[in-house]
């Protein structure tokens, strides 16, 4: 038995999962105390297109890499998963490191070392795929690392800025 809190589009659901599927492939899941029979695609291979059947309702779903969003024909929703067995919850947003989200060229540096920034403030412009992409501060703080200069080519996940 696993217990999770699933937050979809701002709504909390308490989910309990009985881990062994029956012979038809359905697993019994309780959501906010309501019992559902749920079948999902047997393997989460990267090439698989994920599907699920809940009772007699059919779904195709698309999670992003970190399961922070769920997409279906019903729309694109933010997703937060809290595994009650994995201990204390820690928000991920505390991280002040800014890494290159895609490879590209630094088109503009909008901040300086030691500068104070607010969350959401544009700090860099990264040119990639013929677009100028603004990179914003993930949190408020002071710039303590600045590894980006105009015209510089950066690789995926390269550390560009740190905000403390």
């Amino acid at each position, binding site marked *: 038995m696993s217990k999770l809190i699933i937050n979809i589009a701002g709504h909390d659901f308490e989910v309990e999962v009985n881990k062994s599927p029956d012979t038809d492939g359905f697993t019994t899941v309780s959501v906010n105390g309501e019992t559902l029979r749920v079948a999902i695609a047997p393997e989460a291979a990267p090439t698989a297109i994920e599907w699920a059947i809940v009772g007699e309702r059919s779904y195709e779903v698309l999670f992003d890499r970190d399961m922070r969003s769920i997409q279906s024909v019903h*729309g*694109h929703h933010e997703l937060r998963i809290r595994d009650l067995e994995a201990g204390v919850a820690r928000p991920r947003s505390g991280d002040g490191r800014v890494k290159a989200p895609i490879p590209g060229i630094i088109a503009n540096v909008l901040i300086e070392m030691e500068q104070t920034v607010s969350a959401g403030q544009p700090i860099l412009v990264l040119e990639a795929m013929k677009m100028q992409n603004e990179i914003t501060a993930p949190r408020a703080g002071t710039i303590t690392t600045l590894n980006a200069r105009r015209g510089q080519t950066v690789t995926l996940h390269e550390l560009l800025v740190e905000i403390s």
Partner: protein
Amino acid sequence: MFQKVLIANRGEIAVRIVRACRDLGLATVAVYEPSDMGALHVRLADEAYILNSPQGYRDPEEMLAVALRSGVDAIHPGYGLISEDPSFKRACEEAGITIVGPTSEVSTQVRDKVGAIQRVQAAGMPTTRPSTRTFGPDEGADLLAEAQRLGYPLVIKSCAGGHGRGTALVHNPEKLLDIARRSSAQAQAAYRDGRIYLEAAIIPSRYIEVPILGDHHGNIIHLGDHDGSIQRNTRKIISEAPAPNLSPSQREAIWTSAIAVARLFGLRGACTIEFVLDGAGNHFFSEVKPRIQVEHLVTEMITHIDVVREQLHIAAGLPLRLDQTQVHLDGHAIFCRINAEDPWRNYLPSPGLISAFRLPGGPSVRVDTYAYAGAEVPVRYDSLLAKLVVWGAERDECLQRAQRALQEMHISGIQTNLSLLQLLITHPEFTSGSYTTAFSHLKLNNPTPPPSQLRDLAAIAALTYLNRTRAAQSTTPTAYTTGWHRDSRRLPQ
């Protein structure tokens, strides 16, 4: 007809041209930059030449050298890249190789957007009101003076490219220079040309586009019209044909203007005449696109005419096979541009390996793409990944089918704008057909599904999470083990 055609482009449009050539029995020559070696246009062509100069696809000299070396008798330049470069066209003309599309002379004329508007104005037709000249990124004082003369609100436009990157609305002088600098930088990134010009804004406005075909024998026909008002992140992502909510007389007037403009410039091949429509329904000439349009599929669906095939016919000197009375505008079509980008993260481009890819099918659905499961979305190029078009006998049927096709289409491994497109085409302002360019800036709310669906999705997410963490016990990303997984995501406006 030609024997062998060089395709001076890449991506889906190069693939589209290979298809048109194959359908005519013509041999095809592709070109590729080293990073595009395994790209679909290379695979499908009969021959493929590597481009070694640093400018690659944008190097007119190397392109012409390949044309001569491969012995083609025609070049199809597609759109973008060097498709509108008059010097490349002139070099081809001088080398005796047919280049599909208008002549270098005509290209030079329509490339000068301000000059083109002035010429149409002089011919007595209504046009938009542009600045008298173009500006570089550092001509702030002159720009302010010209803006004063035109009056606010006004639109900044890039000299190169289309309605897209670089276009921005300015309401007052305080913001002009900041916005102009930004426009110029965007245009520079997208088109390698940072020059801009101004135009008196028309609010509310719609972009109405009329594709035309002109041959070497003086025949010009139009292929109806479509509405290209809907942009997101400076790109037209939805087009529909015919443009909704136009009266027959309005439509007739726009078509007549389009044909007149085409005659004025002596346009040949497939071109598009673009108009701005004001709130009272008056149309104003805006510019000429002297090449195939990204969204030409929408025209093909309502006319049953293969526009690229016709381009090749015309370039070969053949007369148009249809006169205007033989062009039947049939039903309704909606076009969606599918980009490799994350609309929920400020349209961040999303290159990478496509792990799953499933196209919609059934009647009256078409997708043109260079992608498939296992293909790579390259880092170096535009985010345009696929083009979806659907047809319906009526607009309602077409809307329903567009919605269905978008729901069926599945791409994973990279981020796409599919869910954004779904939001847009089901939005009341779109379904009513009453939208203007203002719709491009509308903030969209992701509707919340009924609680029973959210409950089901919660159950699915929980089970999937448990499966994934179980399967990848040792390689679990840290994010999975810290308890909360979250990210604040809002759709940027």
